[in-house]
């Protein structure tokens, strides 16, 4: 079900991308169109997409709605089965993370199974650290009791034994997190996220001073976060403190395009309302596209977990934001303007 919505995301990305190239061609095409006898039937693809986007915006709004609903269902399922709406990693749950730099190939599956059989009660995961395809080391995480130093030493010696290497101080990194602290971190980070959202909402209201358009911006940010959480869960990504920070970044980034859109549509007077929307799409999609490119480069080439997690969350969020801004927010805005003009009895 959820895969569906990812697929839609990408489709829409392409749709809007094509629109993005619009503004220039329009100017060139227009005089030509006027010269020729109007070819009514064979509309080109760009034209028809543009037309569909203009006329059918209400129907299009089903996409973000379904996306949000699916995300909420999937998160609810997650809460019902695990009791937590995200999967927490050891930095939010307590445990150890051991990073060992090593250029030699390591039997990672063997290491994991052996460690898991020796420490049966613990959730252990091991994987290789790659940079642009080459091994640079291994990372092992385990939710072993961090307050007990003997446990950690035992765990370290088991790793050393399996890999037949010597683990000397300074040759590897170890991060130990107490479980009570992990829980504190988690709660604090969630609170921070909540306040970030609240502060952002206040600023948006203060700037636009009209309830429905402001709510549309806030809803877009909300949908971005919810959809991203759902996708992150489905991808099996375990979130750490850095991941929560990434959601904060997402709040900032996702409202960028919504602010651009709302400012241009509500506060500007030149051109028609739809032209202003299209110009926002063009600017906004350039912004999102550059961000996505940078983020994608980082995901492919980084060897650092913190950075990869932040970037993955941003990538998912930015993709979701394309739909939530250019379909959902645009839809609500147009809906609002239509109703407003009907009430005041005049057209824009």
């Amino acid at each position, binding site marked *: 079900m959820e895969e569906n919505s990812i697929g839609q995301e990408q489709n829409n990305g392409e749709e809007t991308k094509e629109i993005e190239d619009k503004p220039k061609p329009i100017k060139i095409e227009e005089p030509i169109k006027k010269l020729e006898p109007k070819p009514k039937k064979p509309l080109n693809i760009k034209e028809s997409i543009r037309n569909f986007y203009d006329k059918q915006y209400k129907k299009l709004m089903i996409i973000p709605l379904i996306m949000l609903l699916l995300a909420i269902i999937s998160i609810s399922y997650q809460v019902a089965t695990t009791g937590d709406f995200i999967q927490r990693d050891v930095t939010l749950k307590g445990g150890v993370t051991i990073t060992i730099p090593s250029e030699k190939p390591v039997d990672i599956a063997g290491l994991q199974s052996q460690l898991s059989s020796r420490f049966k009660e613990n959730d252990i995961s091991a994987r290789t650290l790659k940079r642009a395809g080459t091994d640079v080391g291994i990372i092992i995480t385990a939710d072993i009791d961090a307050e007990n130093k003997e446990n950690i030493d035992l765990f370290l010696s088991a790793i050393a034994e399996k890999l037949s290497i010597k683990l000397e101080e*300074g040759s590897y990194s170890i991060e130990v997190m107490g479980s009570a602290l992990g829980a504190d971190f988690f709660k604090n980070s969630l609170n921070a996220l909540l306040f970030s*959202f609240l502060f952002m909402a206040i600023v948006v209201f203060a700037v636009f001073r009209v309830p429905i358009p402001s709510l549309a911006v806030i809803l877009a940010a909300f949908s971005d976060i919810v959809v991203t959480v759902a996708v992150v869960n489905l991808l099996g990504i375990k979130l750490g403190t850095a991941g929560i920070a990434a959601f904060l970044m997402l*709040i900032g980034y996702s409202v960028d395009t919504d602010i651009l859109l709302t400012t241009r549509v509500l*506060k500007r007077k030149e051109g028609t309302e739809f032209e202003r929307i299209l110009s926002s799409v063009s600017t906004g999609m350039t912004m999102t596209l550059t961000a996505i490119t940078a983020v994608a480069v980082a995901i492919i*080439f980084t060897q650092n977990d913190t950075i990869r997690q932040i970037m993955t969350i941003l990538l998912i969020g930015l993709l979701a934001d394309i739909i939530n801004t250019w379909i959902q927010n645009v839809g609500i805005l147009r809906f609002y303007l239509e109703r407003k003009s009907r009430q005041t009895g005049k057209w824009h």
Partner: protein
Amino acid sequence: MALVETKRKIKKIFTSFRIILFIIFLLFAFVAVHPSPWNKGVAIRSIEPNSSAYLAGIKSPEKGSAPMSREIIKSINKVNIENLADYYSSISDLRVNKSIQLKTNKGLYRLTVKEKTKEITLNETIEKIITEIIQANETINGTNVLVNKTISSKIIVNKTEIISLGAEDIGIDVYPAPTSNLRKGLDLEGGVRILLQPEEKLSKADVDLLKESMEERLNIYGLSDIVIRSAEGLPPPLGKGEQYILVEIPGGNEKDVRSLKEQGKFEAKIGNDTVFAGGKKDITYVCRSADCSGIDPLYGCSAASGQYLCRFRFSITLSKEAAQRQADLTKVLDIVTEGEQRYLSEKLILFLDNKGVDELNIGSELKGKAETDIQISGAGMGLTQQEAVTNSLKNMKKLQTILITGSLPVKLEIVKIDTISPALGEEFIKNAIFIGLLAFIAVIAIIFIRYRKIQILIPMLVISSSEIFILLGFAALINWNLDIAAIAGIIIAVGTGVNDQIVITDETLRGEAAGVFNWKERIKRAFAIIATSYATITVAMLPLFFAGAGLLKGFALTTIIGLLIGILITRPAFGIMIEILSKE
């Protein structure tokens, strides 16, 4: 013609106030970062107290001093030192009492290599005659007078022998000479980070006191360059307001920091009354040199039921108030006689963290006397005699540290320990630079495809890269450590910068297409959008100051400062550049 036009535009750009401001900031950043990639040699991180380097007059760098101001070792015995390997090889063949000529960028030092010795206690015993001057009451001519009396007594102690362990390390902790004023955070440089949580709520003054005494303790262990920060969770009623103390020791190891959590509440009591406590108020001087501290020559080591016990002693000087307290408390005590010795009826009991460390008999001559010079003693045990000596000396050092620095205002719990290997940090920096460049090229490519105008591309390139540099300059100026979180913050700041530049470009080009507005108006419109998104992202980052026990502060700070630099300095400069370059 075109050339004249270009010249005119360039002149216009460089005379614009916004551009001048931007250039000034860029220059400041350059001075602050002080990049010097060809810096060679090894920099001094810290000097161990009482080491030969210390005695030669080399000093540990001042706390918080800029990396580029660090003393750098240029040559040892006229052999040039270019890197760590050179340094270690040149100090590898030290011989005792050999003199070393060490040249730094600040001066020339002559070090004499000390001998590393160890005092071991033998199983043989020896008779020792000790002389003491005691004061006694004597009746002379019917009146009671206090007289000084010299008595000698014979005691039997273990024989000790001092053995040489070869040359002692010259006591300099070094690292490769810094190539700029940027400080690498712990995840990039390697070291230990611990997060401590006080068991009870501390006032701000107590937190400062805590930080101060911890710093002093670490300094006694020869560790400088440490970062001690306090952090708090969301304050009530929004959160619990948890307090944390974050300690980062670049190049340190776990053993160094375990001692930090010990509260070190030292008290010397007679009965239930405290005579003196650890810290500067009661104790004005603690002897740490060999002549008045070490294994107690009077008692040495003894064996009992398979275990060895060695006693240590060191002298301290009490403040007048503490001495007076002692006098008042001893005045009322009785004198008891134990064999030949006369003691007071109560003992002086030393407590460390509410546990008794040692009990000392008080000589009868001290009754009612405000004596400021006191000897503190204790013991260490071990399965072998050598182990007992080592443990005893370790306990002594701990006790001395506590007596000097005083107790921490509260008990601390270690909640997190990270030990980070320097190898990973190096790898990370290389990787980060590579990714940064690649992402930059990719973004520039997209911008070029979108606008196909060199007069838009060039300002974007210039502004975005300067933005990173100004942000780094700021980090160097406020002594901020660049860690992975801070790098993430820089990425956001630059990413937002690119976004804003796209908005400025589109707004100005759109205005041009509409042909309605003058340039000022166009820039103003662009800034209306930029300012709003600036405000939202900034307020969204603020709560991070209270999350993750301060580990995310760096992230929040770099982002917020980066955005501020952007909206105040680099964005206006970009607007002007675009205006001048694109205007017909």
